[in-house]
């Protein structure tokens, strides 16, 4: 065995906060939440908003292979080499929580391929309200629900709603059409989450993803400090 040193990942598990050369690795943010709540749309909007100022990449975890990745490619929010699809064997929550190896490999490959990145967004394949990301995979997580999914979801709680670092209630533009009570959703979310932040957003509206982007910038500043 000749032992000249190659890049061998980020030490044992990949959760280490520094690269082998001692610099801080990319901040990893997970986006989870039910199917159709607007995770991919939020990722796309974040990429458009943040790409002028940050170097970033995306990992998708599709239930059926590459749907989300292909959407992001079609929308051309990032160059293709910055988007990786991980396959999850019909169990998307396993891939982000119980066995994170494929996702860890994907984030490391992205950094190897693209050079040092500031931010990697990891979208979970839509799952139920109990799916959360392992702390071994992400540094913080965003849980995305939408008003059309029922305005009692914040009240019902569940690990995503109660513990995510940021709760996004998406599609507020649809509230009048589905009879959702936004004030009640906000109050219920606040009751479930105490001090943890909540953002109500419509990607169809003027402000779009701005508030979530501001939260991401804050997290990144804290991470890089």
């Amino acid at each position, binding site marked *: 065995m000749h032992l000249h040193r190659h890049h*061998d990942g980020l030490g044992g598990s990949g959760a280490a906060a520094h690269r082998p050369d001692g610099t801080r690795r990319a901040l990893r943010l997970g986006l989870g939440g039910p199917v159709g709540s607007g995770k991919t749309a939020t990722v796309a909007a974040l990429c458009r908003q943040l790409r002028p100022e940050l170097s970033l990449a995306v990992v998708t975890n599709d239930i*059926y*292979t590459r749907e989300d990745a292909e959407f992001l490619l079609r929308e051309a929010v990032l160059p293709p080499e910055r988007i990786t699809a*991980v396959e999850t064997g*019909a169990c998307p929550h*396993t891939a982000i929580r*119980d*066995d994170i190896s*494929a996702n860890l*490999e994907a984030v490391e490959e992205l950094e190897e391929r693209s050079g040092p990145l500031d931010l990697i967004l990891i979208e979970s394949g839509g799952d139920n309200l109990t799916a959360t990301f392992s702390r071994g995979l992400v540094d913080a997580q965003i849980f995305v629900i939408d008003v059309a999914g029922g305005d009692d979801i914040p009240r019902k709680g569940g690990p995503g709603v109660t513990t995510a670092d940021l709760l996004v209630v998406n599609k507020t533009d649809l509230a009048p059409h589905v009879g959702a009570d936004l004030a009640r959703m906000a109050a219920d979310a606040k009751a479930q989450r105490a001090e943890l932040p909540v953002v109500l957003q419509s990607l169809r509206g003027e402000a779009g993803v701005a508030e979530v982007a501001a939260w991401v910038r804050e997290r990144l500043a804290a991470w890089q400090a």
Partner: protein
Amino acid sequence: MNRAALLLLADGRFPAGGHAHSGGAEAAVRAGRITDAASLEAFCRGRLHTAGLVAASLAAAAALGAEPGELDAAADARTPSPALRDTARRLGRQLLRAGRTTWPGGQLDALATVFPRGLHQPVVLGAVARAAGLGPEDAAYCAAYESVGGPATATVRLLSLDPFDATGVLARLAPDTDRVAGRAVRAAREALTDGVDALPAASAPLLEISAEAHAARGGRLFAS
């Protein structure tokens, strides 16, 4: 003998990425070759005596301390499908990551350094078994059992097969699994003196061909 470590390494919940792979079961389900418990059993028996035997002998040889690079080349030679070679190295990298954090030590770290693109999963399995204080029999059993356990679990998800029926299949394959593990260890010991050509080269052409088709198709649930 270090039985508790063996249980840990053989556990399907060991976080090494296997849950996203069906061992060819998804392709076989799509082709109508697996439709129920009986056809799952036939599929698994075939896989055990071909891919399973080869994997078990590679794992046993690695656990005995054979040169990993040579074993990896031997695995390549026994895996015609580029997609399967790719999958095997990917799973090897993922297993090495899990193994290095579970049983930290210089040998596995060195493996990651010398082979940054990864080694075939059975080769890593043998090395990890060694790092866990396990022997060649243990490594062979893990590989043999995994060669049928993966497809059985996947089929439960793919066909909504009764999970008790799937477990029954694995129980009926236990005597075959014993025999395959035994053969694999004998071959691995021979390979230590006679070289890697002494390792079995049983192959299942349909597994190789359908793995290529599976890798090329969209709308799949499992990576392989």
